[in-house]
């Protein structure tokens, strides 16, 4: 693709963002008594105090992990929307390990390992089903999100609930597992940026990454080169699940310091938005996560200070996703030759799968 196209793309992107901003303004006008104060809260709230800044940066770090995870799996052409469930399973596994080990120097590293393993395992299932059974990954990951959500709630209510808890939570983890922060900068932010860089290097600079991208761009081409397409699909799911698992660990040890039913809900879908904003490039995810996290934190703040529902930001999410998805598809359609673009238009869910044809 030429730079000219990218400039045009950037201009459209800017126009879309301005349009979305106007929509938010209209929604605020509908609900707020004091529109200028609400706009001010939305736009500057995230930096209005040290506490809010820390909240912004740590939320952005969660978005970075999950955004990198989504980029990876989308680039391999898999429409997995399962990050949400992977985060829940990972948080549960990590929290379970931390609570079981108590005060121990090994608690945090082992718990993070448990999170990575939990996220990867929860992603492996739909990966295997897609690669070997040609089960529609959109539906399986969506369903598994709910299974994870209910399992999370069930385990906390039945096994981890401390006596006399008024709402479904676990005990606090030992303080030794709490992630430190430097002033307003949480350490999870550093790990999150490193994860984005890591995923970017994996995709763009490694042999495995090249093969994964080939599977995403053109499965017939990957097959013709003798790549193990099915195994690569599974690898993509597992690695993205592992990165999503880090989100669960970051939220548990950097944010809530215990397991709470409903913690992190919706983060999987916000990760999709962050990945889309970054045009599925993990290297850009830190920027888009910070930008979106900024607005998101502003939304939380006007809910508290201005009695405006933070849900106006949810509407914005929807508009942004439609706009970005449309922009991306148009750009792809222009920059790809028809022969390569063909596999992108195949219908998931139809019974005749091309993955199966490898064995025929």
């Amino acid at each position, binding site marked *: 693709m030429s730079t000219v196209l990218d400039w045009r793309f950037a201009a459209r992107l800017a126009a879309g963002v301005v349009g979305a901003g106007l929509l938010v303004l209209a929604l605020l006008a509908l609900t707020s008594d004091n529109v200028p104060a609400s706009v001010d809260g939305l736009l500057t709230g995230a930096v209005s105090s040290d506490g809010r800044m820390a909240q912004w940066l740590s939320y952005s770090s969660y978005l970075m992990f999950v955004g990198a995870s989504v980029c990876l799996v989308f680039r391999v052409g898999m429409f997995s*929307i399962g990050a949400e469930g992977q985060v829940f399973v990972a948080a549960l596994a990590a929290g379970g390990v931390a609570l079981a080990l108590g005060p121990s120097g090994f608690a945090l590293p082992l718990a993070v390992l448990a999170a990575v393993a939990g996220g990867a395992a929860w992603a492996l299932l739909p990966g295997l089903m897609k690669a070997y059974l040609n089960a529609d990954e959109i539906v399986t990951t969506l369903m598994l999100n709910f299974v994870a959500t209910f399992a999370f709630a069930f385990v906390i209510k039945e096994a981890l609930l401390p006596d006399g808890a008024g709402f479904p939570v676990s005990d606090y983890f030992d303080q030794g597992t709490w992630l430190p922060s430097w002033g307003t900068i949480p350490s999870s932010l550093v790990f999150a940026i490193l994860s984005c860089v890591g995923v970017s290097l994996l995709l763009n600079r490694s042999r495995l990454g090249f093969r994964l991208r080939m599977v995403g761009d053109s499965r017939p081409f990957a097959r013709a080169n003798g790549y193990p397409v099915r195994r690569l699909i599974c690898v993509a799911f597992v690695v993205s699940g592992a990165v999503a698992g880090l989100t669960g660990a970051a939220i548990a040890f950097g944010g809530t310091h215990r397991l709470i039913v409903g913690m992190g809900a919706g983060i999987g879908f916000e990760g999709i938005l962050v990945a889309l904003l970054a045009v599925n490039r993990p290297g850009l995810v830190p920027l888009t996560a910070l930008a979106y996290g900024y607005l998101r934190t502003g939304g939380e703040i006007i809910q508290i200070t201005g009695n405006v529902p933070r849900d106006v930001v949810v509407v914005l999410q929807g508009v942004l996703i439609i706009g970005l*998805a449309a922009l991306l*598809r148009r750009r792809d359609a222009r920059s790809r030759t028809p022969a390569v673009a063909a596999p992108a238009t195949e219908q998931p869910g139809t019974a005749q799968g091309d993955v199966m044809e490898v064995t025929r």
Partner: protein
Amino acid sequence: MYLASVLELATPLVLAALGCLLTVRAGVDNIGIEGMMLGGAFAGAAVSTTVFGPWGGLAVAAAAGLALALVLAWSHLSLGADFVLAGIAVNLLAAGGTVTLLFAINKSKGQGADDLASDPLPTVNLSFLDDVPVLNALADQSPITWATILLAPVFVYLYFHSKPGIWIRAVGGNAPAVVEAGISPTRVKWLAMSLSGVFAGIAGAQLSLATTHTFVRDMTQGRGFIALAAVYLGLRHPVGTIIAATAFGACQALSTLLQVRTTIPTDPLAAFPYVVTVIALGVAGLRSLRRRSLAAA
């Protein structure tokens, strides 16, 4: 009592699932069905207390579902957005939009609450059935439930025998043949998605105008996704879909019963439809794998 609650809870699932079936067969996994239901539930409740009354609410609920479906169809078919992303976007628009409007309405009424009372649809009162075993489940159902029971066979017939039904099934199965026949697959998809929106909007009205008499934020609670699951568990066949959706309704009724009468945890029961559907997708995959290896041998 239990049976009556099964019918009441299965109604929105069956309606939404049949809507979903149309889009799935036209090649689009309609994730946005959840948002369309939510939009319908809100619009129904909001309009039912105005001069238009509950029946006006029902009509507007269908229109709201349709409007959100048109957003989905427009994003996917005209703008070229992927339908998964467009579906997620529709859900976010509905979730955020209903709460924002709820806030605006309650504020104008001087209320701060998270819910909105509705003027419910009158039930179809057949009190002579009260003492008849089994059939007494039908004695006090909403008109939407009755319409679903009576029109489901009509739907199945039209699905197989009407022209639009045949087009929709053909688009997902063999799009080039549809083009050969001089029909635009895109238009058929518009039709399938629009219909699913109307179905979902009415399903939402059942929630806010019949099952409960309020709109509460996020009140669909994943019912749209359960409907999508029912389509796949029902092997993308209308009768299978109706059976699966009804079974999921029975699950929800059992869950409610357990919550009221016992302390047995209901989370596993809530997860059940999703687990069964994942297993069903796996089994379907294994079966087609075996068929292929038999064909190759």
